[in-house]
């Protein structure tokens, strides 16, 4: 169980760090704005690198959420379900 927690936590923290870096470039109109890190990204990114950065930020956002959810909820729940279903011999 501890391993699963650490895997989920590692995914969450690393992906959230990368998301924060991407969002600080592309989703932050101003650091004094209340919409920093969550504002909409620019409609037309200047270069292909900007497009990649925005995509990476979105990817990391969902990686953080789904990764933690997978290791903290889905996998332990699956194991519990399997233990409940399989009859001990």
């Amino acid at each position, binding site marked *: 169980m501890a391993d699963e927690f650490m895997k989920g936590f590692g995914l969450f923290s690393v992906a959230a*760090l990368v998301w924060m*870096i991407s969002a*600080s*470039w592309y989703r*932050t109109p101003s*650091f*004094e704005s*209340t919409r920093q890190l969550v504002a909409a990204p620019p409609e037309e990114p200047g270069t292909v690198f900007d497009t990649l950065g925005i995509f990476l930020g979105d990817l990391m956002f969902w990686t953080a959420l789904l990764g933690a959810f997978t290791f903290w909820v889905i996998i332990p729940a699956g194991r519990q379900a399997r233990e409940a279903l399989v009859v001990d011999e």
Partner: protein
Amino acid sequence: MSDDNQPDARTDGGTGIVPPDDETPTWSERKSRRAGLPRLTYEYFERARREDQDLREQSTYVERDVLGFPTWPHELIRNLALTSFFVGMLLLLSATLPPHIGNPANPSSTPAIILPDWYLYWSFGLLKLGDLNPALSLLGEQKLMADRTYGVLANVVIVGAIAIVPFLNKGSARRPVEQPFWAAVGMGGVTFAFTMSMLSIQNIMPMNVSLLFDLTFLAPIVVGAITYAVLKTMREGYMYDLNRRYYRLRPPNRPWPTTTTVPTAARGATWRSRCGSTRRLPCSRR
């Protein structure tokens, strides 16, 4: 109990043969680490463990459960790891985050939002408790004191409450389950500091101010109640008394029962059932 009458009871000395304890790796564990970084790491800490074992054998002190750890490598490896992490994080963030140093402050114009540094938000929030300042009908619906005086008094009350806590509870608990009430008080206090900080930046909080004001005082109570319930539930099945027993000084010339070298919570179950009682003393001392 006749052993206690001997004048100089010492546990060290003797044959020098030390029976393996729980930290001693088994032979299969020693064989399983053969190459690469696992082997290097293993040899490193195995050497440290061996040095520790030698120190224990050579020691003339009465053996305890915890003899102490050498600074190298235990303390320094940990400190170097923590330092490397924070230095690396500083380098990463300073290299990747966009710079956001704005224009220099204009001394001739007051900014719209004035805030102290973030760690003083809780105190700043306490200055905004004017809504709680009661208007007394005796005084003709007049307030007894000005709102600003009320805010300063709120600071005095909060700081005084924090200062009183050490006199009410000495903090002898090793972990929160041992004292669920005080753990709940602590969690409520932390939550209150957080919500009060949120109240202090109500100008830029994307939330209804009156709702925020209510949440400031309700959330700590809810969090404290949840903490108390969870810890009280955990405590039922938690054999913390066995662990507490383990960390006490081991009595001289009287080792643990040989069947259970380390009474962790898991082994405590068998130990307990074998003794047939929940008394703290091990079987051999009764």
